[in-house]
């Protein structure tokens, strides 16, 4: 990765940590394992740990476990070659080699790509459900384990009601039991497995429910709105919005998300469930405009395939009152800034 891009992601972490590093003190001189550690979340956690160790002398030992460990090492040598970061290549369903002295574990293993969910729903379910079962069995053997954070999904409560401002953690809804919704259904069942491990084996597990993120390290190849708009603009194409552009989503920047996860891991009560995301919604039409602002000439925005009505959830926002009140977590990087930083990072990386 280009030096300037490395410096920018480091700067993002330092900006978030400024005045907030104390809240992560429990991590000092400890051993952290992230399963599924080479995706967007895992990479940002690695960046954050590297910043904590370099700038605040935390002395954290980080292990990233992933099927894609080799690709990670090739893509991000500035992280992979550090002496405080180790990589283990393994499928979450067969965790043979695992650091026995782990103090903290984050289980983030799942493929978030909607194309895989659509084409391989059974494999999607297997990675999530069998993977979580495997993690819970492994956790039983960890004598020093303080807490295990499971990264579920903001989709486990099903569609947001039209009138609600955001989905709260205690929302009673559920996803439709259909192959098209295998990912949230599997995540929901994985949360149940976490609860079972807590009840049966006293595993100190708690749950974070991520919503939508934005930032460097997110593949622009994925067909999400924020990545597609950025990809269109970077290629000099018009930005094409599916539908009428009135769908509302929210986005949390990568370094903010990493801090939120580490904070919830270290400060959370076992059994807690916490939404992770930005509570500030934006229509996809306005998101496209925000993206377009960062490019010269400004790309045209098209709504050329608007359906008469949309069956997809018109709004998906987290209610983050719990994260704010209990953990003091807020959005550190406003969306306008997040988009600007992401666009710049990709432009630097591509040049």
């Amino acid at each position, binding site marked *: 990765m280009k030096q300037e891009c490395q410096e920018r992601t480091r700067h993002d972490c330092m900006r978030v940590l400024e005045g907030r590093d104390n809240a992560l003190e429990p991590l000092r001189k400890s051993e952290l394992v992230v399963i599924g550690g080479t995706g967007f979340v895992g990479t940002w956690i690695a960046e954050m740990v590297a910043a904590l160790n370099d700038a605040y002398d935390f002395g954290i030992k980080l292990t990233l476990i992933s099927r894609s460990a080799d690709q990670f090492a090739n893509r991000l040598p500035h992280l992979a070659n550090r002496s405080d970061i180790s990589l283990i290549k393994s499928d979450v369903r067969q965790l043979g080699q695992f650091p026995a002295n782990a103090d903290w574990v984050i289980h983030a293993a799942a493929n978030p790509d*909607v*194309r895989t*969910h*659509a*084409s391989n729903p059974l494999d999607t379910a297997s990675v999530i459900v069998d993977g979580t079962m495997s993690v819970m069995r492994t956790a039983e053997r960890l004598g020093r384990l303080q807490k295990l954070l499971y990264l579920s999904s903001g989709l486990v409560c099903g569609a947001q009601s039209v009138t609600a401002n955001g989905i709260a953690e205690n929302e009673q809804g559920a996803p439709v039991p*259909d*192959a*098209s919704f295998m990912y949230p259904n599997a995540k929901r069942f994985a949360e149940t497995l976490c609860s079972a491990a807590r009840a049966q084996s006293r595993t100190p597990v708690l749950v974070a429910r991520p919503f939508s993120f934005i930032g460097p390290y997110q593949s622009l*190849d994925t*067909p999400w709105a924020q990545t*597609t708009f950025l*990809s*269109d603009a970077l*290629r000099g*194409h*018009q930005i*094409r919005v*599916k*539908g009428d552009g009135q*769908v509302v989503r929210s986005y949390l920047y990568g370094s903010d998300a990493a801090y939120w996860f580490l904070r919830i891991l270290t400060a959370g009560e076992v059994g807690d469930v916490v939404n992770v995301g930005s509570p500030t919604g934006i229509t996809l039409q306005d998101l496209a405009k925000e993206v377009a602002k960062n490019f010269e000439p400004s790309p045209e925005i098209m709504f*050329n*395939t*608007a*359906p*008469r*009505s*949309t*069956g*997809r959830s018109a709004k998906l926002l987290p209610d983050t009152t719990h994260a704010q009140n209990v953990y003091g977590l807020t959005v550190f990087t406003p969306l306008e800034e997040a988009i600007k930083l992401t666009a710049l990072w990709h432009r630097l990386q591509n040049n």
Partner: protein
Amino acid sequence: MNPTQEIRISDPTLRDGNHAIGHQLSAENIAAYCKAADAAGVPIVEVGHGNGLGASSLQLGEAKTPDHIALATARENMNRSKLGIHVIPGFATIERDLKPALALGVDVVRVASHCSEADICERHIGFSRNEGAEVWGCLMMSHMISPSMLLEQARKLESYGAEGVVFMDSSGHFMPEDVRVRVDTLVNGLGIAVGFHGHNNLGLAIANSVAAADAGATLIDGCARGFGAGAGNTQLEVLVAVFERLKYSTGIDFYKMLDAADLAEQTLMKEIPTIKSVSVVSGMAGVFSGFMKPVTRIAKEFDVDPRDIFFELGRRKIVAGQEDIILEVAKQLAQQPKKGNP
């Protein structure tokens, strides 16, 4: 019905029509019709071999005009209309076919699969979308699966990046209510636009297209004079007139559309598509309209009733690409005593 609704027309005269004449459209034919369709303001004009990009072959029929000439000719002769292509992964490969087609100025890529096999479309949709083309997914022979299964497949196309999904009544089998239920299911289950492509085996292509629009489809296919496989497609100039009467807006100049249809009749087709007896049977049996020519030929060869072949193909759920089964069925029927009504 929503009288304020805008309907976008996609015109596959120069693609589906190729089926009707053994893929023998010339560059001159393409140039003339593209000019006429462009003058009429047809939003999308689809061009190519009947089975789409890269499909010219001994097995499926060799096109008179190679893809690159057909597309370049169409592009040169259209200013307002978007240039569309039909892409069946396998026949069309990304490097050999899709990349050069996009470089020639294709605007709309419609990636198609059999209705239950949307998985094969992922790479072609992703590539086209990344190259900046407008991308639709198409589900052919859609009568062969239930509305809920159609939605499952359509959701796959949406997840791959398709900006709309067209379901195709490839054998002209649907009744208007069948179409309405499917559009309703798709509109309520997808976040992207829904389109319909009709065939006229049972004389219902226009009625089915109106049912689709009434239920919320926003893209409808139609061919000049119905020029297309088997009994032909939804007759475009009639569809434009019907939509005008129903107060749907298509943005097409009606007189110029009639002129384009007259031109198509005079220059593109040997005969205007009609609903021949065997097409009625193909529609009832739910067999791909494009099978009409090979079934007729093979039936003659084996001295069997082509209607029996169609009903047997329908019973076996045979789809495009399985043309070799026609021979097997004809052979078997030839060994049996002659049948009456199914």
